């Protein structure tokens, strides 16, 4: 097959209880003009796609622990295989929780330290964007972006050795910050260790973050910084057409 898709195609995974899949689909179809497919969790084939989205929500009711049951859905075998091939995967909010439970990213997300659900706009400091080229390649080290957060269980925890390894590898790519870019306890909305809002896997293709880029992709809803992640993906895909073609 020599045909290369002109437009990025994203697979958006839907578990029972997922609630942000339509926002991602809307941004893909209406804002970006991309192709997308909603993939029900019982499917074991993602279909032809250039990137996979695990959206926010409450997969399987978040029973037992957030993301704990979702990791056993058949679609996760396909997501794991896609990630193992180097495909771009993003998990936002509940999707981040699923990625940690599935072992695709280290650590865990726990109840916010103040025990409240937090829904707000949040400043984030971008760090080591080159470590996550598929999703942050268009952003600069130290740049501040603003994205919505909406979660009750976003407190990132991991043992000190894991945290140190993440830091040493430049894999902490988003941190909660104040408007001046300072990472302080007051700027931390959930008590996450070291202000961690987003991390990437060692290979750099799987990003997990608590904020919602899909909710900051149109000026009408208050901000467009989320589009920067999608623009990064599009550029990254253009730069590796051979890999994209292999998956057709």
């Amino acid at each position, binding site marked *: 097959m020599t045909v290369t898709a002109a437009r990025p195609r994203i697979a958006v995974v839907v578990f029972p209880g997922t609630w942000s899949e339509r926002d991602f689909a809307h941004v893909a179809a209406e804002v970006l003009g991309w192709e997308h497919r909603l993939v029900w969790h019982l499917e074991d084939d993602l279909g032809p796609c250039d990137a996979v989205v695990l959206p926010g929500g409450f997969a399987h009711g978040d029973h*037992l622990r957030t993301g*704990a049951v979702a990791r056993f859905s058949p679609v996760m075998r396909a997501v794991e295989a896609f990630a193992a091939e180097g495909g771009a995967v993003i998990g936002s909010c509940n999707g981040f929780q699923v990625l*940690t439970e599935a072992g695709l990213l280290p650590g865990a997300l726990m*109840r916010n330290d103040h025990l409240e659900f937090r829904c707000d706009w949040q400043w984030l400091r971008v760090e080591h964007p080159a470590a996550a080229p598929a999703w942050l390649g268009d952003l600069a080290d130290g740049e501040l972006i603003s994205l919505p957060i909406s979660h009750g269980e976003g*407190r990132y925890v991991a043992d000190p050795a894991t945290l140190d390894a993440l830091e040493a590898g430049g894999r902490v790519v988003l941190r909660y910050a104040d408007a001046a870019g300072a990472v302080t306890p007051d700027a931390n909305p959930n008590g996450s260790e070291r202000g961690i809002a987003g991390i990437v896997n060692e290979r750099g293709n799987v990003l997990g973050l608590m904020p919602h880029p899909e909710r900051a992709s149109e000026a009408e809803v208050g901000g467009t910084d989320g589009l920067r992640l999608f623009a990064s993906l599009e550029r990254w895909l253009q730069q590796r057409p051979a890999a994209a073609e292999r998956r057709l």
Partner: protein
Amino acid sequence: MSLRGGIADPEGQTIGSALRSLGYASVSDVRSGKLIRFAFEADDHAAAEASVDEMCRRLLANPVMEVASWELRAAEQAGDSPVLPS
């Protein structure tokens, strides 16, 4: 399932504050956890222990933040559930 020692437990802290506000002034070190009870069949005690250990590792506890401990109770006779109230 209980939280590992180094993991902050805001629910436990809140419960501790509530108990102290009720007058139990000496309450400290409150840790919250989760209890799951279920019935299942196994050939013998060792097989039952092995099964529960595997269940804890694969699903019931997240080793990043939790440790699991368990207690096995044999049913009086086959078909009885030691879980449901009689």
